[in-house]
C-alpha cells in the first residue's frame, strides 16, 4: 500500500505533521497550481500502515487519515513493477 496526498483537496493546514507518530510528513516548500503549500513526505517507508496493512488485514494507525480535515490522505494499492526483459542483441 502507498500513502498519497490528494492535492486537489489539501488546503495546507499541516495538521498531519503534528499527529503522525512516525513524522513522515513535513511542511512543504513549493506552491501547487492552486497556490497552496502541500505537505511533503519525509521517509514514507516508515509508515506502518503502508507496510503491514495487508499482513494484519486491518487499518493499523490511520491517525493522519482520521485527522485530515479535508479528506486528502488515503492509501492506494501500489502497482507491481513490471518484470524487466533483457534482450541481448548479437
Amino acid at each position, binding site marked *: 500500500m502507498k500513502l498519497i496526498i490528494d492535492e486537489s483537496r489539501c*488546503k495546507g*493546514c499541516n495538521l498531519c505533521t503534528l499527529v503522525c507518530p512516525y513524522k513522515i510528513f513535513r511542511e512543504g516548500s513549493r506552491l501547487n497550481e492552486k497556490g497552496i503549500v502541500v505537505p511533503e513526505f519525509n521517509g514514507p517507508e516508515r509508515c506502518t500502515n503502508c507496510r503491514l496493512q495487508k499482513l494484519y488485514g486491518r487499518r493499523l494507525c490511520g491517525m493522519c487519515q*482520521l485527522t485530515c*480535515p*479535508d479528506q486528502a490522505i488515503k492509501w492506494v494499492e501500489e502497482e507491481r513493477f513490471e518484470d524487466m526483459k533483457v534482450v541481448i542483441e548479437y
Partner: protein
Amino acid sequence: MPSVSEWYRADRMPHIFCTGCGNGTVLNCTLQAASDMGWEIDDTVFVSGIGCSSRASGYTAADSLHTTHGRALAFATGVKMAHPEFNVVVFTGDGDLSAIGGNHFIHACRRNIDMTVICMNNMIYGMTGGQGSPCTPRGAFSTTTPYGAQEPTFDLAELAVAAGANYVSRWTTYHVKQLTDSIKTGMETPGLSFIETMSQCPTSYGRKNKLRQPLDMIEYLRDHSILISKKRRLEAEGKVIPDTTFAVGEFVRRSRPVMGLKR
C-alpha cells in the same frame, strides 16, 4: 456493508470549511464510526441546523436534512417518531445547540429520544464572523467581546447529564481515536447520546486570540483538556483546577427509559 469512503459524497469535495477547520475531522470520525457500526446508508439520516458545523451533513452520502437555526433536534425528533427504524445522527454547533436551540436540547435530553447528537464546539460563531457564543471561554476575544468575554462558559456536557441524556462524553479534535470510539459507543447506546467535540476555529477564534495557525489552536485544545477521572480525583483531594481547562472523557453512561426505540 458500505466502506468508509462510500459514506462521503465525493462529488461535493473539496468542502467549504476553512484551512485547518476541525469540522472535517469530526466528520471523518463520525463516518468511520457509522461504518464500524455496519449501518446501511439508506437507513441513516443526518440532521443539522445552521452554522459551519451544520454544513457537514451535506457531505455525507446518506439522506440529510439541513434545517432552521437551532431546530435540528426538533426535526430529528420528527424523523425518529415517523420512522423509528432509522438511525438518526444530528450534527450541530455550539451556537446552534446552546444559544438558540437550548430549549430543544434540554427537552430532547429529557425525553431521551434514541439518536446521536454530535456538537462541534468551536467556542465561537464562525460562519457569521466571529461573534461570542455561550461557549466562548472567559477572557477570550471575539467580535462582540472586544475586551474579553466576561460571562461564565456554558458546560454543555454537564447540562446534558443534568437533563437526562443516556450517554454523554466530550473529546477534542486532537483525540481522534477516542472520539471515534466514543461516537461508536454513543451510537450503540439506546437513548440520546451527546458527544461534545471541542474543535478548532483558526479563522474566527484563533485570529483574535493569538492562535492563528491550526497547529497552535489544536495544541491549545490538547494542553487545556484534562481527563474527567483526573479532574474528579483532584477535586476529591481538594486541589485547585485551572479555570481555563475543560474536562474530557466519558461523563455518564446509564439506561433511563428511552423514547422512539427500534421495534
